[in-house]
Structures are given as structure tokens and as C-alpha cells.
């Protein structure tokens, strides 16, 4: 984990590159950055996924000396980066299907090892498999778990924007409670996504006992880069889940992607941590705790929680969810949780929240 940074820009929680000494600055500010996902792709304005992918893959390129290949699940990232006959990827890249990127990644890793061994080459190319939350937590979950349990030498990156954005914002098992999607609309007695559903894939990944699991966000790109580089220092199955706001799906302004992501972290809504071999090794502490309403009010998917007709009980429930995360992951304290935190969904289901 990045050392605690005590200073940030006035009036915000931004730790800008300008405030850091050169050795700590993000490499995106360097003229020799790899630009693995090059400009010209078709992502929307303010796309969190494009931002997250660019930083994550560039960091992995640096960590591997450019010896890197990607298996990409179907989804926005695939569609916006490779419209025939163009490709925005400047590394070996394959898209096969929606639900199989982890398995395709395993196959690529096999091929890389076998080819290197035959050629007497010790420099074996590394593999990243990646997809959105739908391709990861839902349809690709079986192959993902299989890749984890075999401890295949693949880093899986999930770009989590909490719904199926590419098909038009439908609910996934990563969609938080009360959020509006096209399949959990703001109608009925309990508008938005149901409570007591969903799954916490980072914790499930940890339960596989794989070498490295981390969550990150596009609000702290330095931390994201650090985690990707850290992940590449391990061999075996690794998992990084990056919170990447989707202006279109979340109904947030395209200029506030990073702000929204930061508030997700600063409210306890999205715990940022890393774990090795099933044990949490660091937690990104909240710098300035914010009430969750500050996060919600920037997004139309939660319009029903912040407007005049808002139900304060539901808002309180979302706040309780964040408070639960803060307790479970000790997001405000100085400690690192000794035991694996219980998924917040468990507390929703048991009506503790």
C-alpha cells in the first residue's frame, strides 16, 4: 500500500501529481508512458473503465517489460476498443466470448509457457484476463473460479461499474442495493435493486486462497498502478477489482467520474484493500469520511434517495451498509482486519442492516 499521503489539494481530496515528488508521480504523466490502450477508441466521455484499463494495463506493461497478453471478455471495453478494422490495443489481445476470458487467459498462459520452454526462453509472457462486472461476477464466474482454484498464472482484472452497461444498464450481481438499472427500475414499494442480493467477489477470490487479491478505484490511480505492479510480482492466480464509474449507467456527470469514485471510497461504500493468500495485508483508510448521501447525490441511479420524495429509511440503510464496511475493514482505524471480513450482503440478509 502506498504510504499515507498527508496532503491534498485544498477543497478536495485529490492528491495531484503536482503535489508529489517525482518518484511518486503517476507514469501517465511521463512522455514515455506505454499508452497500451491508445487514443481513438470509442469509450464515452468520462468512461471510468477506459481510465482504469489504461492505467492498469500500462502498469502491467511496465512491470513485465512489455511481455504481456490480454484475454478480454465481451463488454464495453471490448466493443469500444476493437471496432473492425481498428484496434486501440498495442499489445497481443484476444476477445473470445462474454463468459470465458479467465479460461482463455489460462490457455494463453499454457501456450506462453510451452512455447518459451520449447524455445529455451526463460522470459515467459504474462497474461491478464479482464472483463466487466457482468462478465466476471455473473456469466464468467465458473471459469473465473476454475482459474483461481488451478492457480493458473493469470491476473484477472474486473472493471466494476456495477451493472451491464454495454447492453443498456441492466442489473448484475455487482449492482448495489437500491440502485436503479433497466431491470431494477425506480418503481414499486422498494424502488431500485433488491436488498440482500449480490455477491462480494474479492472476498470469494480470497476464499480460494490465491496469492493476491485487491480492490482499487480510478480515484487513486497511483494506488491502482501499485496494485497492478504488485500483482505482477506474484505468479499464480490473482484478482484485482477496480471501481470504474459509468457516467451513462450511473447518471453522473462525465466530468465527475473520479470524484464519484473517490466518494465511493471516502464514504465506505467501496472498501479498498489488498490481500495475500487469503489474508488482508492492507486497507486504504478513509482520509475524510463523508456521509454516503454525498456519493449518492451525484448519481441519477440513486435519485430516489436524495430528492424531495426520498425515503429516509432507505438512505439510512445505505449509510448502515457503508458503516458496516467501515467496521468490517476498519476503514477509519489503524488496524488491518485479522480475519476475513463478512460480506456486507450477509448483514443485509440477516436484517442487521
Amino acid at each position, binding site marked *: 500500500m502506498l504510504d499515507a499521503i498527508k496532503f491534498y489539494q485544498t477543497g478536495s481530496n485529490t492528491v495531484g501529481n503536482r503535489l508529489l515528488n517525482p518518484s511518486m508521480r503517476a507514469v501517465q504523466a511521463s512522455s514515455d508512458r506505454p499508452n497500451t490502450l491508445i487514443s481513438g477508441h470509442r469509450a464515452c466521455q468520462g468512461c471510468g473503465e477506459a481510465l482504469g484499463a489504461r492505467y492498469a494495463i500500462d502498469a502491467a506493461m511496465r512491470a513485465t517489460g512489455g511481455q504481456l497478453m490480454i484475454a478480454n471478455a465481451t463488454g464495453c471495453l471490448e466493443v469500444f476498443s*476493437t*471496432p473492425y478494422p481498428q484496434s486501440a490495443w498495442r499489445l497481443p489481445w484476444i476477445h473470445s466470448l462474454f463468459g470465458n476470458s479467465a479460461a482463455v487467459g*489460462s490457455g*494463453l498462459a499454457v501456450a506462453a509457457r510451452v512455447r518459451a520452454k520449447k524455445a529455451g526462453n526463460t522470459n515467459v509472457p504474462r497474461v491478464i484476463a479482464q472483463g466487466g462486472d457482468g462478465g466476471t461476477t455473473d456469466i464468467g464466474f*465458473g471459469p473465473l473460479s476454475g482459474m483461481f482454484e488451478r492457480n493458473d498464472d493469470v491476473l484477472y482484472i474486473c472493471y466494476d461499474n456495477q451493472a451491464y452497461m454495454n447492453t443498456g444498464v441492466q442489473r448484475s450481481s455487482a449492482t448495489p442495493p437500491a440502485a436503479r438499472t433497466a431491470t431494477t427500475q425506480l418503481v414499486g414499494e422498494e424502488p431500485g435493486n433488491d436488498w440482500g442480493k449480490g455477491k462480494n467477489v474479492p472476498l470469494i477470490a480470497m476464499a480460494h486462497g490465491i496469492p493476491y487479491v485487491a480492490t482499487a478505484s480510478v480515484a487513486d490511480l497511483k494506488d491502482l498502478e501499485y496494485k497492478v505492479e504488485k500483482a505482477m510480482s506474484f505468479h499464480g492466480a490473482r484478482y484485482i477489482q477496480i471501481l470504474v464509474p459509468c457516467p451513462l449507467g450511473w447518471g453522473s456527470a462525465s466530468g465527475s467520474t473520479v470524484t464519484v469514485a473517490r466518494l465511493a471510497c471516502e464514504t465506505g461504500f467501496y472498501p479498498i484493500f489488498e490481500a495475500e493468500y487469503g489474508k488482508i495485508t492492507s486497507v486504504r483508510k478513509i482520509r475524510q469520511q463523508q456521509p454516503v448521501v454525498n456519493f449518492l447525490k451525484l448519481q441519477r441511479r440513486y435519485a430516489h434517495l436524495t430528492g424531495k420524495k426520498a425515503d429516509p429509511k432507505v438512505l439510512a440503510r445505505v449509510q448502515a451498509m457503508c458503516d458496516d464496511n467501515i467496521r468490517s475493514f476498519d476503514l477509519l482505524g489503524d488496524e488491518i482486519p485479522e480475519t476475513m471480513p463478512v460480506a456486507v450482503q450477509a448483514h443485509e440478509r440477516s436484517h442487521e442492516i
Partner: protein
Amino acid sequence: MLKQIEGSLGIAEAVALCRPGAVCAYPISPQTHIVENLGKMVKTGKLQDCEFVNVESEFSAISVSIGASAGGVRAYTATASQGLLYMVEGVYNASGLGLPIVMTVASRAIGAPINIWNDHSDSLSQRDSGWLQLFCESNQDALDTHIMAFKIAEEVGLPVMVCMDGFVLTHAFERLDLPSQEQVDQFLPPYEPREFLDPKEPISMGGMVGPEAFTELRILQQRKMHKALPIIERVTKEYRELTGHHSGGLLDCYNCDNADVKLIIMGSTVGTAKDAVDELAKQGIKAGIISLKAFRPFPYEALRAAIGDTKNVVIVERHFSYGARGILYPEVERALRGTGAQIHTAVCGLGGRAILGSTIKDIVNYSLNNKFSSEMTWFDVDTKLINSYLKDTEGVTLPEGPLPEDVLMDTLQKVRA
């Protein structure tokens, strides 16, 4: 080298001779023994520079194969029945990406009702998947076809499904002649992928193609299929010259000279049929067998030549298309258009029901006595079993013996009336 071994072991030995770099396994009967043996060979070091991956589903078996093939090594997997259906999305994807994966389908019926025994409904469900589909009549044929399949797949740039009858072949112990490693190395050069994922020369595979080019890509894929026909013939010729084995090819004729009736058959039934027509020949009945090896691409011209001026043609199908008729029939009809041949389908051997010599003889006699009244007729039917149901539910009784499809439909009209 001659060995008395199980068909599955023979296939495993043949695949190992082809030096694959990745073998993916997920258990489903009756293909299990093939991958079990390959797993053992990798673990003992007999099969070197190869990784054996125990995956969690057939969907991942094909997906890991896709990744390995895209990564530039020979990839092999095997499946059957429900497993094939579970991997279908990847099956289509592999051909679209032009990856020369070789996969055994140990043909088995599809449920419900669940049934583990042989018919061809699994492999033929993938008729339009863009894979080459080669059927095998014996274990020697299957063993040899696997070795040829890698070469064909790599020359054509499409994946190949080697379809061998589950249990009947996979679990049968027979004398098999395995070519030597030197022979296979001479026949099948080290794998040189046309393009693969390589950090030295980055490419993007599997981009999104819209209406502006999709049709054209499909035409190019169809063109590969057309190219495959002569490639299969040439590779077969090379292989036969090298080993002396009479395996593979687009199709194979038995007893076809001056035959009064020709049966078109895929798979292990061919062996039974050859014995049956030998016995018929002693009675002066001239029946020929055409063992159809290549189902996709379909060898229209070769089939037309093989039928020649024979007027009675019966396709023995271990499968059919619900709400339609035989699956091979439309292809054969197209191949023989204008020849005046009478073409009929005999459906039998579903879900593992044995096709006996008597079945074949019945079909031959049925044809020569002009008894085919329908395009499709069901043979070896337990009429009593059907009637026990239909009598109670619809008040209908079907006649004993081969059941023409038209008779089945006529009884339906009686119910309506």
C-alpha cells in the same frame, strides 16, 4: 506398432504423437478414457512440452483450448453429448477465430431423457458451427483420422471435430496399428501458427465486426471449407502412402461395383454393414456401402461419383431432425439431383440401440422390394411399447415392423378426424 488396446487409448496415443501443447479435460462419458490417458502421458513425461489442464466445465475446456491455440500451440480436447452442447458458444467462436483446434466427439445421444449411449445427435447438432466434421468407422480409422485432423486443421485454418461412436469405438479393444513418432513427425511438421498472440508482434484477435464486413468474413470462412475438400483428399493420400493404412478420406466405398442398392452410413455401423452385405452377397443380393467420412465440408461431388448410376440409395441415419426428416437426406438429395436415384432414410440406432446385421439386411431388402413408402422410415422399432402409450392416450395402434414417417402422420390425421 501393433497393439491390442482400447480405442480411447489408441486415440490418446495418436494425439500424443501429434505433439500437442495443451490438452484440456472435463469428464463426460464416453470420452473420459481418452483424456485420462493423455493426462497420464503428460504426468509421466511421455508427452513432453504439453500441459494437461483439468478444467471446471466443457465451456472452459473449449475456452482454454481457444486461448492455447491463439497463444500458438496445438490444442486438443474431447467431449460428447451434453458436454458438446455446454461448450457450443466456444465451438462457434473457435471456428470464427480460425483456430485449428482438434476435438474428439465421442458421439452420444442428447437428453432428455438422459442417455449415455451412442447416436449422432450431438455431433450433428454442430452441423453449422463452422468446424470440419470427420466421422470414423473403426478405431484404426479414428486413430489415423486424429493424426490427419491436425494437419488438415492447420492447413485449412479451421478447427476439426473427429466424431467417433461412443462406447462402440471408444471402449472397444481392438488390434490397432500405431504409426511411429518418426512417421508422424515426417507427416506433421512442428506447429507453425499463421498468426498468434506474441508480444514481439502484437495483434488483436476477435474484434467486433458489423454489417460492413460480416458477410465477407463469412464468405471467406465458407471458402476455407471449400478448400478443405481437396486438402482432406491430399492429406489422406499422403498419410496412406506413409503408413499403408486405409483410413480417412471424404468417403469410402465397399462392395459398390454393380451394387443394386447403396447404403450411405457414418460411423461404426459401417463395420456391421460390411459384414451384412457380405452375407447378402452370398444370396446374390448386391448391396454396397458408402462410408461417409467427411460430413462438413460435405463431399457432394465425391458422393455423386460414388453412387454412380445406382438407383436405390438408402441413408442409414443415427439421428433425425425433429419436425423434419433425416439430417443427411437433404445433402444426399442435393448431391444426386438429376440422377433419378430413389433416396430414402432409414433411422435407427438411436440412444445406443444396436444396429445389427439383421437391421442392415432388413433395410437392403426393404429397398430392393420397393417397400419404402416415405422419405424416412424408422427401423427396429418396438411397436408394442409405442402402442401401449398411444392406445391409451389417443386410441391409435401403429402397425408392426418398419415404421414409415407417413404412416406415423396418417395416424395423427385419424385422431384429428
